């Protein structure tokens, strides 16, 4: 994951460009929706959700890879992805609440996607807590990999049970009433691409920072 410097800069520039295009499309190109307030947050809320799930999926895959190979690089990828995932997950809860307040009249209701997002947040914060409580690096890697797997497997079941428990989310609105207008869909896609780029920029930077930390630790150990 250490990528050469050129490709890292390339990824960063590409992501920055995508964000500029996404901002233009969201605020200028896309028409207003009459009966919804704060509707443009949609173009940030959905990509942030996607980035959080992508991050947790990366955690799941890297956790399995770590347990199979015991290669520390997978542990570094998994923890970096958890940290980034929690940031996106928090943004998901915040942007959702900002949208919900003017449209539903409350900051929070126990709607399935909200509840699932909150449960996920708690699971992955638990992941980081356990790392803090583990004795030794190998144990931390092993135990958190197990949580990374179990936590991800739980997602669909949590979602299903909370969906049957209560239904009310604009997702149904979007997909059941003929979908989005083409311009809106285009803006959403660009925004999704931008946030996907951002996720990988952050992941690559965090992984290389952690690698540098590990290298530094090794050097310091060898000096003693």
């Amino acid at each position, binding site marked *: 994951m250490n990528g050469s410097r050129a490709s890292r800069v390339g990824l960063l520039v590409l992501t920055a460009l995508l964000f500029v295009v996404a901002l233009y499309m969201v605020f200028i190109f896309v028409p207003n929706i009459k009966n919804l307030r704060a509707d443009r947050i949609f173009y940030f809320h959905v990509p942030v959700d996607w980035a959080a799930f992508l991050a947790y999926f990366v955690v799941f895959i890297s956790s399995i890879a770590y347990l199979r190979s015991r290669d520390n690089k997978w542990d570094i990828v998994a923890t970096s992805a958890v940290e980034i995932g929690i940031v996106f997950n928090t943004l998901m809860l915040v942007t959702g609440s900002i949208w919900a307040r003017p449209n539903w009249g409350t900051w929070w209701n126990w709607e399935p996607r909200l509840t699932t997002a909150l449960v996920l947040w708690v*699971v992955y914060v638990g992941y980081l807590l*356990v790392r803090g409580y*583990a004795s030794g690096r190998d144990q931390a890697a*092993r135990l958190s990999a197990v949580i990374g797997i*179990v*936590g991800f*497997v739980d997602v669909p*079941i949590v979602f299903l049970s909370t969906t049957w428990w209560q239904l009310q989310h604009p997702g149904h609105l979007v997909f059941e009433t003929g979908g989005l207008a083409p311009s809106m869909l285009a803006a959403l896609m660009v925004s999704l691409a931008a946030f996907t780029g951002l996720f990988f920029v952050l992941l690559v930077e965090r992984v290389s920072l952690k690698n540098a930390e590990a290298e530094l630790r090794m050097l310091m150990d060898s000096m003693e």
Partner: protein
Amino acid sequence: MSFWKKVAAITRKDALTELRTKEVVFTVLVFAILVIVIFNFAFGTTPEALALVGPGILWVTFAFSGVLSLNRAFISEREAGCLEGLMAAPMSREAVYVGKMLGSLISMLVVEVVALPIFALFFNLNVLSLALIVTTLLATIGFVAVGTLFSALAVNTRAREMVLPILFLPIVVPVIISAVKASGLALTGGSWGDMFQWLQIIIAFDVIFLVVSYLVFGYVIEE
């Protein structure tokens, strides 16, 4: 020895220790009664209020008592240095998982068998229905499937007792939701058809997490 004989040996060991000391079951039972009493103060005692929050109280009680007894499952092994013995024993880690899981299942079921009538008595609810018993059994299997894994995980960390509830409670959210809904239907005489919607989530959870925990348990108790 075959796999199941080894499993039975571990479960029997846990059951025997528990029968001699009656430590876990008795303590957890007292705790369960205390939770019921506290909830009684928190939600009031009118029949309407009880009908509304009854199933919720039941499952909060079982979930919290579950955390308490599951924590003991591996802490007691650790205290007497038995964990090393288990690891050195000529059996797979999977056999240890299934054996400990069945041991915890038995002790939780004993607590529930005693707590359910007490619950019925205090709240004047009809709990002795087949529907409620099936729900309780299925949900408890889900609790111990994940709980045994996380209990073993927690015991090797520095925070021990704090780790299990933090990991266990969010993961079992689907079981708690479905068990509350299914018990609500069972207590108000709902049909099996309505209940099945919720029971199938619990069954899916049980199967998925028995398999996943079985597969990853070995990594948790490695040292």
